[in-house]
């Protein structure tokens, strides 16, 4: 739906959204908008997170205790809700990340063979 890069956009596979969010907030606390921008930037516009799935995911992760939220002041001096990784979130990130890498390596291997 976004104007640019529709052709190159990749639909997020099931379960990867959580991983992306965890990874994005692992470096520094960020608010929702920043998270979606960051993912978009790093993926070169290939990955776009819809608000319709971003915020429910954030709330779900917060409920699970993997991220925690606090209100802070944004760079343009407005009140924003920042999310940061918790200790258990870090463990979750590690295990999800290794699972993901193993999966993609395995898939790549299968694809490369043929």
């Amino acid at each position, binding site marked *: *739906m*976004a*104007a640019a890069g529709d052709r190159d956009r990749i639909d997020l596979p099931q379960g990867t959204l959580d991983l992306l969010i965890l990874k994005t907030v692992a470096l520094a606390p960020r*608010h*929702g*908008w920043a998270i979606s921008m960051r993912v978009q930037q790093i993926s070169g516009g290939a990955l776009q997170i*819809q*608000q*319709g*799935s971003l*915020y*429910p*995911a*954030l*709330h*779900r992760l*917060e*409920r*699970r*205790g993997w991220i925690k939220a606090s209100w802070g002041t*944004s760079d*343009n001096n*407005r*009140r*924003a*809700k920042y999310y940061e990784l918790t200790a*258990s979130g870090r463990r979750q990130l590690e295990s999800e990340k290794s699972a993901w890498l193993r999966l993609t390596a395995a898939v790549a291997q299968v694809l490369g063979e043929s």
Partner: protein
Amino acid sequence: MSLLSDLAYRCRALLRRRTVEAELDDELRFHWEREVERHLQAGRTQQEAIRLTRLAFGGVDQVKDSCRRARGTDPVETLLRDLGYGLRMLRNHPGFTIVAVLTLAIGIGANTALFSVVDGVLLRPLPFPHPEQLVRLHESKPNFESGSISYPNFRDWQQQNHSFAAIAIARGSGFSLTGMGAAEQLDADLVSSDWFSLLGVRPLLGRTFLRGEDEVGAAPVVIVSAAFWRRKLGASPAVLGRSLTLDGRAYPIVGVVAADFGFQIPGFFHADVYVPIGQWSNNLLQRRGAGLGIHGVGRLAPGVTIDAARADLQRITRNLAAAYPEDDKGIGATLAPLKDEVVRDVRPYLLVLLGAVGFVLLIACVNVANLLLARSTSRAGELAVRAALGASRGRLIRQLLTESILLAVAGGGLGVLVAAWGTRAALGLLPTALPRAGEIGLDGRVLAFTLVVSLAAGVLFGLVPALKMSRGSGHQTLKEGGRGGSGVRHRAQDALVIAEMATALVLLIGAGLMLRSLANLWGVDPGFRPDRVTTADLALPPAMMTASPDAVRAAWRSIDDRLSAVPGVQGSSLTWGAVPLASDDEVLFWLDGRPKPANENEMSWAIRYVVEPGYLRTLRIPLLRGRFFDAHDAERSAPVAVVDEVFARQFFGGRDALHQHLDLNGGASRAEIVGIVGHVKQWGLDTDDHHALRAQVYLPFMQLPDAAMALTSRNATVMVRTAPGAPEVFASVRRTLHGLGSDLEVSRIQTMDEIAAGKLAARRVSVALLGGFALLALALAGIGIYGVTSYLVGQKTHEIGLRIALGARRADVLGMILRQGVKTALAGAAIGLVAALALSRLMGHLLYGVGAADPTTFAGVVAVLITVTVAACCVPAGRATGIDPTVALRHE
């Protein structure tokens, strides 16, 4: 750990919902603004930036909904939101809400009230420890399932059985209390030792009877009821060891027990005092063949079934029959669960009534469903908007169901109040007819029932409208300007009214059949005229117990004389033995000229009335042939007897019974039949015809054998017929009876009319209730068809206006509307008739003199239904004829 934090999160989300929601708003607004800013920075116009942001965002409400779901509090929050919304809706439509809640309150209230009765009487276990172990015991005789147990047989059953933890017997009796103010006649129960301990009744004070205290010849002891203890003994804890003088003998008090055991075992009466049965002065007690009105209860040993106990007693009674063929041939034992016997008579009535209130609630539900449907016009637009905003169909249905359940719960709450009042009123109507009435009340179980019924009703009446309304709420409705789906709804309303009519018809037919049965029973000739007849129990002073039989006769004669001298007394008679509709007594005999039967079991039985010459005149029993007794049929003259027509037919067939002889008292007396009288319905107006024992024999009071005459001094009955329309005559009879009180005890004064009415009390009350429910159903159904017709007229205003403009006469319009209503009613009636045919058969055993498919009742009820329909349709139809065509046509 993570579970805990999860829970903490959900609790915060739920408890601080407002904060959490505000935070969500802030968060999303922040995102929105940043996005707009981004687009502006990229050089887009303000308008373009907002458009792009909105596109990217999708529906804000949907995002919020998803977030709420993610918070894991969604089900609770949705419910709260639906409840809040529902409450607002109901508050905004007070007319609808009040009508719906009241309708439901009546339906649910009636169900709650009746369930509390059914629960207290039928479902709840008897208020004894391990009540499932309790059984009722009788001796079965060749012609009698529930006969009296003789004392020697009881002793043998007690010693030889392997099935019971204990068995006990009791018999109602009376004592004269002296030495505590004026002499007083006390109600007493003669019981065997285990009576109280078997039932699990604990004494309030002292102890219950000990084993052996019930033996003949044991020292006298007495247990008093709490009511007597309070009334006569000042509730003093020091009564133990004090003595009561009963029939001139000192009985030390050993215990006090609660006034009643919480219920009445049929055949046992609330007593003032309890005395061991061995104290009974009747020397027949020790006779194995005697029938003295003694009945038993037993407590099964743990793990023993009633069938096993039955087999065990069968073995014992077979052995006894072999050992004592004279007395015990053909004698068996009857066992039944105690509770079955307590509730046996009322169970069918209660179940029919419970079914009836169920129908009433069904009709109430249908009415409310109709109201909801009628309202759907105004709501279609609202629902369509909600659907367009992304609410799913399930979501809408849930919202609508929440509203109907709210209605139902409000109706249920009000219904509990209705029930509390209704139950009290109903119990006031029948203080004695219902066993276990004291155990009826609104408690947790009943309230739980009400809650379940309310919720079920809410779903029941809410589901159809909810399904219909949610279906009709697509964008089509929006296009139609909120008027869509009216055809569908009309059909649904029609179907509901047809169902309502059918249900009402079933109820009306049930009530009609019961009413006709009752009317038939009132019309049944009991064989005597109970009006203006008063009965009372009399007992001569205790000193007379040791008097000679002739002295007893003389005492009774003087009482006779004094009674008949009272002005206004048209007839009176002492009686002993059976009293019509009230108490029974049997006699053994054989026809003279046949060989004497080898034992009592080969003799014949008849109901025995021991009466004086005035009896026939007092009860107005018709004399068919021969003569009735006169003053000459006394102790020194030849024994005579009078029999009823049933007796004559049964034992003499085509031969003439007059001047035949009966051998009575084991052959000691030979009585000549001097007259034949009409049959009296001894066993009750509805059951007498089916009773096995119907032959009746009358014997002169003064010809009672000496031993029996001595017994009459303690309990005879007197019957008095008074002149019409003279309450002072009635009062003077009472005064005379009481005036004799210095040397005569008078108790249980009641009229024969009261006795006859009491016999029909359960039936009368259930007819009243069933009739009430049926009328309620009819009224609700009438309201239902009124509502639908009104709606129809409203819908057709335009059409009717057009017709009138084109020259249709008012009568045509009226006919059109009425035809529509009657068509609906007839459809309902057709379905109802089929259902009623199937259902009325279930109550066949409650009917008397009317078939379950009685055409008169069925036709009458259909006529009533049509009349009500026409009446209900007349108002809206009248409105239709009054439509002004110019207004109606401009209306569009």
